[in-house]
């Protein structure tokens, strides 16, 4: 139990598993949760330290053909790495498993997540989604931190095997994301040879756009590889410079393009290909280029050239190939402010749908609050997400007086009476520092008839999904993972 003025802390083990287009890897870390309030102020828990304990080997993502991931093999890889790390799966308390890039498009992505999620402790986020990938990569590479410390808007481009995930950060927070279907592994070749073994659909688009005649089994020249990689690099560059892309780049976009209402002041490249962006590598011969059986090295070189030509100086990332997995393992977790919940057996809860019923602010009177909230809840139920749990997100009550908090509680209860009869927990996520008193009012109005989870100092938006874990620090706070999208459909 953490008391006023006490310095106590708790350490939890977090794991990040990234199953990507080309590589599968995991990272284990230790997160320290501490009371960051001074002296006699009400304790506030924060994650104060993130220490990487173990970086796994980088494995090739096992696939049996170009259609399905070998789930059995993936599980074996993870088991072996846990053994090498000397960590039992029971010791892992939190983390994230993400399927990224091209692999996410494959038919059995969902099965993989379910198989591996059961692996790592009580509370693991299992998700795939290009926007979330962009955010995690940018956090893992250090771009988000850079934007906060240097007060600049930073774009991080994580160039992996199949996709390039772009995350734009300002003041440490995510400003924008996008994703383009370009990566080092889109064309596979025999190692140290010039023979093409596989051309992915996006690569086919590039080749056709250039008017080249290339097919599987054929030989490719260095000059052709240089041209193709240059075209790919240019498309990536355009997402940053032109924003509203056209032509080939537009065909390759997997999401809407980046918004145009801000200026990017710094660019960072992460991902496996980044190792070649920041090196002195020059393509010498085809056999040298294809040492990994793909276009990674030459694409990296082409990106370096393209950005240099445009006059953009690239910032060095803290992590390259491990950016996304570190983001998943370390940076996906937040700690709530004060909490109140009736039954701790309810947690952890996963994939909670977030609604934000008061975009213009919370009204003054309970009746008005109830009306707005009920509208939103009815709309969601019509969309048939009745199986899932709902979380009501809001910024703050009408004002911070006790009366306004009480009005808010009455309004919420009035609107949610029907929902509560379905025996689902009432979940409130509020940004302002009033979670405990709001929870107190609610539990009295609801006569503690239902599970109640009221957490504060977490910011979520309409359309987010959240996981809430078991309480830590003697029950004071709960870990929360905010997910942007679950299983986003490819464009």
């Amino acid at each position, binding site marked *: 139990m953490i008391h006023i003025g006490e310095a106590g802390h708790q350490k939890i083990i977090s794991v990040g598993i990234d199953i990507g287009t080309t590589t599968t890897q995991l990272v284990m870390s230790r997160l320290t949760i501490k009371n960051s309030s001074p002296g*006699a102020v009400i304790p506030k828990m924060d994650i104060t330290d993130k220490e990487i304990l173990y970086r796994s080997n980088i494995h090739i993502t096992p696939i049996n053909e170009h259609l399905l991931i070998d789930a059995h093999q993936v599980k074996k890889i993870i088991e072996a790495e846990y053994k090498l790390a000397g960590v039992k799966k029971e010791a892992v308390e939190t983390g994230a498993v993400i399927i990224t890039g091209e692999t996410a498009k494959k038919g059995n992505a969902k099965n993989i997540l379910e198989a591996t999620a059961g692996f790592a402790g009580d509370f693991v986020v299992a998700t795939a989604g290009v926007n979330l990938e962009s955010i995690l990569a940018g956090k893992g590479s250090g771009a988000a931190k850079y934007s906060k410390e240097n007060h600049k808007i930073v774009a991080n481009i994580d160039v992996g095997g199949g996709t390039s995930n772009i995350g734009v950060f300002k003041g440490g927070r995510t400003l924008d994301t996008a994703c383009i279907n370009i990566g080092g592994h889109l064309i596979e070749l025999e190692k140290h040879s010039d023979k093409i073994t596989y051309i992915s659909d996006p690569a086919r688009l590039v080749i056709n756009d250039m008017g080249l005649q290339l097919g599987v089994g054929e030989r490719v020249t260095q000059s052709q590889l240089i041209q193709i990689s240059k075209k790919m690099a240019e498309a990536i560059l355009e997402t940053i410079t032109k924003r509203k892309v056209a032509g080939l780049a537009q065909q390759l976009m997997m999401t809407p393009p980046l918004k145009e209402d801000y200026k990017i002041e710094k660019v960072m490249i992460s991902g496996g290909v980044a190792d070649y962006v920041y090196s002195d590598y020059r393509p010498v011969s085809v056999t040298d280029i294809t040492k990994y059986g793909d276009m990674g090295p030459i694409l990296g070189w082409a990106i370096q050239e393209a950005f240099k030509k445009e006059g953009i100086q690239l910032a060095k990332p803290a992590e390259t190939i491990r950016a996304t997995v570190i983001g998943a393992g370390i940076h996906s977790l937040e700690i709530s402010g004060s909490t109140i919940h009736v039954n701790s057996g309810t947690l952890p809860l996963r994939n909670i749908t977030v609604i934000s019923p008061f975009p213009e602010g919370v009204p003054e009177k309970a009746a008005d609050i109830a009306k707005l909230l009920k509208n939103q809840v009815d709309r969601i139920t019509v969309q048939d997400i009745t199986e899932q749990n709902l979380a009501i997100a809001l910024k703050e009550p009408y004002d911070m007086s006790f009366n306004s908090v009480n009005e808010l509680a009455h309004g919420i209860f009035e609107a949610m009476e029907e929902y509560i009869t379905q025996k689902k927990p009432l979940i409130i996520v509020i940004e302002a520092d009033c979670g405990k008193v709001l929870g107190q009012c609610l539990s009295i109005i609801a006569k503690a008839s239902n599970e109640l989870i009221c957490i504060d100092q977490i910011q979520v938006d309409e359309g987010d999904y959240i996981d809430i874990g078991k309480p830590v620090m003697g029950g004071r706070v709960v870990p929360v993972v905010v997910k942007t999208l679950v299983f986003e459909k490819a464009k």
Partner: protein
Amino acid sequence: MTVSNEMEKAIIESVLQELSKRGVNPAAAVEEKVKNVVTQEKTSSEVSDEIIDMPDITKHWIPEPANEEALEAMKKSTNARIGLYRAGTRQKTDSLIRFLADHAVARDAVFMDVSDEFLQKMNLFGVSCVAADKEEFLTKPNLGMKLSDEAVQTIKEKCESNIQVQIVIVDGLSSTAIERNIPDILPALTQGLKAAGIKVGTPFFVKNGRVRVMDQIGMLLNAEVVLELVGERPGLGTAESMSAYLIYKPSEKTVEADRTMISNIHRRGTPPAEAGAQIVDLVKQMLDKKASGIKLNKA
């Protein structure tokens, strides 16, 4: 009349005398004019109800900054008066004015009393400690821990004894803190404690009191937990910050380490309603573990 008025009157009188000596007698007209000037002076020295906008120190005042974002982030990170530029080697006049204003607010918080209207509105009866006036209260801190004989009588008459929680509201070093925070913390406390089935005594207000008056009150009423809400010493950042002190079964042997304290309760610190809910939890722990202060942390 002020000193300057006196002097003016003397000057005008001697001028009139001189003029009448010379045969000029504008007495009546001059008298009128003097009366006007004097009454004008008087009204202009009354306090005006006009609301003045104080200079805004939450924004930076630096002209043509190299990095606006960075400055905003720095301003957000602290209440300290940074980024307010300069006039030569000194602070700007607006900065000085704001400083004087905040200092005045702090002084008022210390020297003013909690108003009777406020106590009536909050349904709190008031008693005093032994200090004769505010000055004695401020210069002799020990007097703040002792209730007057009249106070002891009143408390015995109006309060329940042998209760689980006694709430005491003390002005301490900021009457402003009490007037600003009590309306939101008190209902949160009473609602939460009642819902938990905890027996709460009759809350009341103590004037010219310090933290340790809670000990005498606790012993007087044989309360299990005394919860005291007291105004904190004001500063330039805020003059309305309040602390909550809690103690389990105080006695003559009570030391400061026996108290649990929550500080910085105000709208820009821990909001009062939220602090109320947090304190309810704390009270439950104290009643459960039968301890407060360091002993509670160790329990």
